[in-house]
């Protein structure tokens, strides 16, 4: 891409950073709502139990209590993420299915009273036998969690592409490896919370810490029965999401019902413990991969089985079980692939989507296996990968089309940008270097509900007094930097400096936007923003051309200045008119070019308010088989990382010393933000690799529902990171841009695993890589030798 940009590709500071650095940025809890009630939710103490009775009378009688609601007070309606699996109710009706299932809720004058009222609600339970693991849930005669799913299988996938048997027949080496990760938590720093206001116009407004105002709006409209046009969801600043905030939560739904019932604003806010109980984060996956290779390293076939421990409800799980298979079809040429996946219900909090949705554990398993094959073949792991990678124009066996793919560039960048060549295979015992690659969608090809809806619409309005434009988008800034990226795209598209762009976002009143998930915003909302910006530019320049009496195509705009091709044009009259209109003002336009401000003013005077709109939905993508939609995307990002580790051979403790990270984001809209996503991805991947695991006791209670006992990395745990941004120029992306938010996490875990293997010779097949697990593996290896 040789296109010259004025705004795109810079390191412009984020628009929201000053507010966030000074404490002025308002998150849900920072906004004042007059006459607010505090809501609280009564959650099940049992993993599986029948509800025999609920007595709320004492709670209702407590002074200060405004409302107590249970399933009796709300419609008997099923909801969830995938319409194919609406399996949640607003409150438990006949039984509770996990410790944390919602049973009742209270709104009171203050939280103290609300909490006291919860204790006064008497629920009689008949405790039922529960299942906490995939094995328990699939055992013959296991207790059934949902009557409609007698074997506790929430979803299963069976796919075959190519001819796997033939692929194995042609293989020289066939390896089978097993890999298990652990249930992860999103561990965003701001817990979920929502304030619902039901006003005298019959409008319901939610102010929610969510990634997906659009889906929250639809779900809340559906369950409350309020016209969707009267449900508004606003997302103020959000303290992180990473996936678990990508669906309507009980905070949203219950605050809505309490607000409707009481006629007052109601806040429902999760404590940190409740965040763990709600979960909706990364599943536990067990992968079994049988892979066939030619002697020269060519990958011939993959037979892959996967079991997901899903928890009590579906959440995003159907998509997850598909992603766990489909995302292995690239970035390596894999002609034959069979996938069998099962997502299994258990009596635990529901798992859902988390950064790298569905693909992270699968990627770890496969990339570790590639290294083991390379060892068997006595090949450099990088050489093995380079031999098999796809390039732009390739289509995977399951119909994922690589419109751009800088995989080779990423791998070579981390090889050359690190000390790989000096160190691989040459480090003393206890020191290791490893690498891995990754791959991810740049926006899901289809919305979660079946629809021909645009995935996003954007409006840009030129302020009537000229000078600035205002971008209105439903896109969800949750920390990833989408507000800044969209403002930059708008500025570039119109041809004005960034400081001429104002932006409001995250509100369903501003347009449709499916939200911050599947790494979709830069490409999709970026497209819509670009289209809206171009419309604005065209409208303004058309007006100017009319005014000047010249052809429209002689005009262009850059940096807020109009460029006129051909002979010079006298615009002094126009300028005089503008200056007269602004007598007494100090910022009169000057210079030998017409300014955007002057041109915009002319457009307003001619047409009234100038508005440009943009929209985006991907073209029809993917194959015709069942589940073909999951994994499709208008573009794919890819990445490679090299990790260096030190293993303490006496304690088994692994320290990650450095990560060299390359990511192909197509074109960096904001270079600093791209690096920021890469570094953040490494930290979440490192956490999952090294520390993170939500643990349960035998009654299904979370043992470590705190940020003290659930270990995300601290600053002291992070290695030195070197980020290399690869720009392949994505033809389907705005200005060539595609994802970085999630693909960047893919190589982290396997790169560390492969480095640990390099350091010790042991293969860790279960996460996290705790010192105990490593030491045990080291001792077992010693014994094998003896």
């Amino acid at each position, binding site marked *: 891409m040789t296109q010259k940009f004025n705004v795109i590709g810079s390191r412009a500071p984020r628009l929201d950073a000053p507010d966030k650095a000074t404490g002025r940025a308002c998150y849900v809890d920072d906004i004042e709502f007059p006459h607010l009630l505090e809501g609280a939710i009564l959650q099940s103490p049992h993993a599986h139990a029948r509800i025999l009775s609920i007595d709320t009378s004492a709670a209702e009688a407590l002074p200060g209590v405004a409302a107590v609601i249970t399933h009796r007070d709300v419609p008997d309606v099923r909801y969830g993420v995938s319409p194919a699996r609406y399996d949640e109710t607003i409150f438990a009706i006949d039984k509770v299915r996990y410790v944390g299932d919602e049973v009742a809720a209270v709104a009171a004058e203050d*939280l*103290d009273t609300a*909490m006291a009222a919860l204790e006064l609600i008497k629920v009689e339970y008949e405790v039922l036998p529960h299942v906490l693991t995939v094995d328990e849930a699939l055992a013959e005669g296991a207790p059934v969690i949902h009557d409609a799913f007698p074997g506790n299988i929430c979803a299963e996938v069976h796919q075959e592409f190519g001819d796997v048997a033939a692929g194995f027949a042609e293989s020289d080496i066939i390896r089978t490896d097993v890999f298990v990760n652990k249930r992860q938590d999103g561990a965003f720093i701001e817990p979920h919370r929502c304030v619902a206001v039901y006003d005298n116009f019959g409008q319901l407004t939610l102010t929610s810490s969510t990634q997906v105002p659009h889906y929250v709006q639809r779900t809340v409209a559906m369950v409350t029965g309020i016209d969707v046009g009267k449900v508004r969801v606003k997302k103020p600043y959000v303290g992180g999401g990473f996936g678990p905030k990508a669906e309507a939560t009980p905070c949203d739904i219950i605050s809505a019902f309490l607000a409707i019932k009481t006629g007052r604003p109601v806040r429902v806010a999760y*404590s940190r413990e409740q965040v763990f109980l709600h979960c909706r984060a990364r599943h536990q996956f067990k992968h079994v991969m049988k892979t066939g290779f030619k002697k020269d390293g060519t990958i011939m076939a993959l037979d892959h089985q996967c079991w997901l421990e899903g928890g009590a409800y579906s959440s995003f799980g159907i998509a997850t079980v598909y992603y766990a298979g489909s995302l292995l079809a690239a970035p390596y040429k894999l002609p034959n692939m069979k996938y069998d996946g099962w997502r299994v219900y258990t009596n635990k909090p529901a798992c859902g989507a988390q950064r790298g949705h569905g693909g992270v554990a699968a990627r770890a398993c496969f990339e570790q296996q590639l290294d083991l094959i390379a060892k068997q073949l006595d090949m450099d792991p990088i050489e093995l990968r380079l031999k098999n990678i796809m390039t732009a124009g390739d289509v995977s066996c399951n119909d994922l089309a690589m419109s751009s793919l800088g995989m080779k560039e990423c791998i070579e960048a981390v090889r050359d940008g690190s000390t790989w060549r000096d160190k691989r295979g040459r480090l003393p015992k206890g020191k290791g270097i490893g690498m891995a690659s990754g791959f991810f969608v740049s926006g899901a090809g289809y919305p979660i509900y079946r629809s021909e809806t645009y995935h996003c619409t954007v409006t840009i309005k030129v302020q009537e007094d000229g000078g600035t434009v205002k971008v209105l988008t439903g896109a969800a800034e949750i920390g990833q930097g989408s507000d800044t990226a969209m403002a930059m795209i708008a500025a570039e598209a119109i041809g004005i400096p960034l400081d001429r762009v104002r932006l409001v976002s995250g509100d369903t009143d501003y347009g449709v936007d499916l939200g911050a998930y599947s790494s979709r915003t830069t490409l999709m909302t970026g497209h819509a923003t670009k289209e809206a910006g171009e419309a604005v530019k065209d409208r303004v320049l058309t007006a100017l051309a009319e005014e000047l009496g010249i052809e429209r195509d002689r005009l262009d705009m850059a940096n807020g200045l109009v460029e006129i091709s051909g002979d010079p044009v006298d615009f002094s009259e126009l300028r005089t008119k503008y200056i007269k209109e602004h007598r007494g003002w100090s910022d009169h336009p000057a210079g030998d070019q017409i300014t955007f401000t002057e041109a915009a003013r002319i457009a307003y005077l001619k047409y009234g308010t100038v508005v440009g709109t943009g929209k985006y939905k991907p073209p029809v993508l993917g194959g015709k088989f069942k589940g073909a939609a999951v994994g499709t995307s208008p573009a794919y990002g890819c990445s490679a990382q090299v990790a260096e580790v030190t293993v303490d051979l*006496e*304690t088994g*403790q692994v320290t990650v010393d450095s990560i060299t990270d390359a990511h192909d984001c197509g074109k960096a809209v904001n270079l600093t933000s791209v690096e920021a996503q890469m570094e953040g991805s490494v930290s979440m991947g490192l956490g999952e690799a*090294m*520390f993170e695991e939500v*643990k349960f006791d035998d009654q299904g209670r979370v*043992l*470590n529902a705190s*940020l*003290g*006992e659930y*270990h995300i*990395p*601290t*600053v*002291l*745990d992070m290695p030195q990171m070197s980020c290399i941004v690869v720009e392949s120029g994505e033809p389907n992306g705005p200005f060539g841009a595609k994802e970085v938010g999630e693909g960047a996490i893919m190589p982290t875990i396997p790169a560390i695993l492969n480095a640990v293997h390099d350091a010790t010779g042991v293969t860790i097949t279960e996460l*996290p890589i*705790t*010192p*105990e697990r490593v*030491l*045990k593996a080291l001792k077992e290896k010693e014994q094998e030798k003896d």
Partner: protein
Amino acid sequence: MLLPRFEYHQPASLDEAVEVLGQYAGEAAVLAGGTDLLVNMKHQAMAPSHLVSLAGVEGLDQASADGGRVTVGPLMSAAVLAQSEFIAANAGALALGAAVLGSPQVRTRATVGGNVCNARPAADMSVPLLALGARAVLTGPDGQRQVDLEEFFVGPGQTVRAPGELLSALEMDAPAPGTGWGYQKLGLRKALEISLVNVAAALSLEDDGKTIKAARVALGAVAPTPILAPGAAEVLVGQAAGGDVFKAAGQKAAADAKPIDDHRGSAWYRREMVAVLTARALNQAWARAQGQ
């Protein structure tokens, strides 16, 4: 998350504190740094109806040496202890443990008295104090008594301190010349971490600079309370300091440990780590002992 309701008392002297505590014995809790107490109260694990803050009692946040005895005030914070040259010189193990407790924000609040009275098996200041041979000075309505720290801890969260008593000081003998200390903490991450295993060691050398005159090894997270490893000390005394004898001491310490399996780690691993960390703590102590 709300704190349960309570009445707040801030007595101005030790006597007054003991009196208030006596008045509400059984219903009152002593508030020092609050980094454990307030967490437990927010989790509804305890709901004392009275909190007696020691913030108004003077002199509890000082350390001193007098006639062969070192006194550490119970209100000294981990941050102060970690940075104190006096503590580094006279009770170095405590400084080492204090420096790695929790996080900077926790260290500015958490006190050594609180750490001892909470009696957590992995407590980062209690384990070093055990190695230092510290004694708890308890002040109650009937006056003062001293309890050796190994007698002080009874079980997780339990001590011999009566409800009406206050921990008014921690005392220990001044270190002999040629004494050094080590502290080793193993956790998953490098901050905000409760130890999987922690080991403190105190080592005194004879005048020859080689022979071990006295040694104490204390272990955390491998028993219901912080414990001493007497077997380790026994192996060490009279021997020339060095890697082999430290390894042997590690093996003895592992035998003295009584770990259990829990969600943080297995008994097997903890025992293995006691051996490794003991040897490392002794090496660290030896280096410092020689440096003096």
